[in-house]
């Protein structure tokens, strides 16, 4: 979720530079990115080509992935949807079924973009208003007046909720001994695999080995299954890349086999790291 945090930041200036910046951090989500791409078409949003826009978005995502930028899931979901929309727009429209037509989908997307643009414009106008405490100022030494009939005690709902939430969290934190994060690090995975590679002159199934390894190190195999699998796979792919070992998987979800890479070329065509 690389793009989650920077949403709060002000995006970098987008002054119509022609080059496509692969700067996901600057965008506040896929719709923001789409709107920016749409602006580059330099046409009225009413006349925008959704097909061209979908293509640009897909190119953007391709480039981002080529640069190994992590894209947040919602960017990928949008990419998948646009790829679908693109195919619908290119194919002849089937007889009207239950689903909305491709043209309807495109129109709906264009409307969403225009709506976002409209609310942005409104936000800019709001921000450019004279603001209290910045452009205009209230009395610096106010006094309580009879007309207001203010209560003796002052408290805001915000303060009440924030006091409650913080107090409750404090107590919960006091109660919970924060469980140690069960993570099998890449370094640990690599260490274990290196030992395995030493033994594996021929194809060796990985899972049983990992289970034995965990057990012999007193680690809870079941709780750690996910992290072990993830770290082991990453470490293995890394080692394949380095030419240290070969990986084999005969079918989707089938067991993974590993062996030390020998000097001679492998006898079987291997699928490298494109398992499930």
């Amino acid at each position: 979720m690389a793009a989650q945090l920077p949403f709060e930041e002000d995006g970098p200036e987008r002054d119509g530079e022609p080059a496509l910046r692969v700067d996901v951090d600057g965008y506040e989500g896929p719709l923001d990115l789409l709107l920016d791409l749409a602006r580059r078409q330099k046409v009225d949003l009413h006349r925008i080509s959704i097909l061209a826009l979908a293509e640009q978005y897909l190119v953007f995502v391709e480039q981002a992935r080529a640069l190994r930028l992590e894209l947040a899931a919602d960017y990928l979901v949008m990419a998948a949807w646009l790829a679908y929309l693109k195919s619908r727009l290119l194919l002849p429209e089937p007889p009207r079924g239950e689903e909305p037509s491709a043209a309807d989908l495109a129109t709906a997307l264009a409307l969403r973009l225009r709506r976002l643009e409209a609310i942005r414009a409104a936000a800019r106008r709001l921000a450019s208003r004279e603001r209290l405490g910045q452009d205009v100022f209230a009395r610096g030494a106010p006094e309580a007046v009879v007309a207001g009939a203010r209560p003796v005690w002052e408290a805001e709902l915000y303060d009440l909720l924030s006091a409650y939430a913080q107090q409750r969290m404090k107590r919960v934190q006091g109660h919970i001994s924060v469980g140690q994060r069960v993570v099998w690090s890449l370094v640990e995975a690599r260490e274990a695999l290196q030992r395995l590679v030493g033994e594996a002159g021929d194809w060796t199934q990985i899972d049983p080995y990992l289970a034995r390894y965990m057990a012999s190190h007193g680690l809870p195999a079941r709780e750690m299954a996910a992290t072990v699998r993830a770290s082991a796979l990453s470490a293995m792919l890394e080692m394949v890349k380095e030419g240290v070992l070969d990986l084999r998987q005969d079918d989707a979800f089938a067991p993974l086999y590993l062996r030390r890479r020998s000097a001679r070329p492998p006898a079987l065509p291997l699928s490298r790291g494109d398992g499930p």
Partner: protein
Amino acid sequence: MTDTAAQPPEDSDGGADAFAQALRVVEALLFASAQPLSAEELARSVPAGVAIEEVLARLTTFYDGRGVNLRAVAGGYAFRTASDLGNLLAAEAEPPRKLSRAALEVLAIIAYHQPVTRAEIEEIRGVATAKGTLDILLEAGWVRLRGRRRSPGRPVTFGTTPGFLDHFGLDRIDDLPGLEELKGSGFIEGRLTRDLAVPVPDDDPELRADEDPLGDLFTPLDENG
């Protein structure tokens, strides 16, 4: 400024005295209060028979062009320094809270679209609202929890506060800038297509037909709750 500005209307001596006194009283109250005071609140303190609107109109004219102006904000009246002197005064004041682009956008959606749920905000922006965004707006006192939408999940609805109007120098929510254009663009024409239209903003504290004052159907929000 002319000297007649502060002069009472010349209906009768008693009336003139009462009006002159009302001018002083209202001036004093508005000077003393940091928050806007409504015409009704002010009327309570002036001599009977004096038209408060006339007093306010007179004071507004009188302070027009001075260093301090009388303004209609948040449904009431308040003295505020003249806006052309902002730079001079800002130097002395604490630096204002800087709103991130995201926070400003969320604020605008809440303002123009209220009452609005978090899911609707996210639908318009096409992105999850980051932690801290709503928090900042609530803390600033510009946004409040209104009630709950009468729809599955009964989500909380958000709206703006009088503090929001005061901060942005608006008298009523209808004074939001660009509202006419948004209406013209069709995004604000009632609730046509439930998903695309932006309703005419409304900060009336009265709950809408599809809003509930979170009621009996409120279900625990946590399995332990």
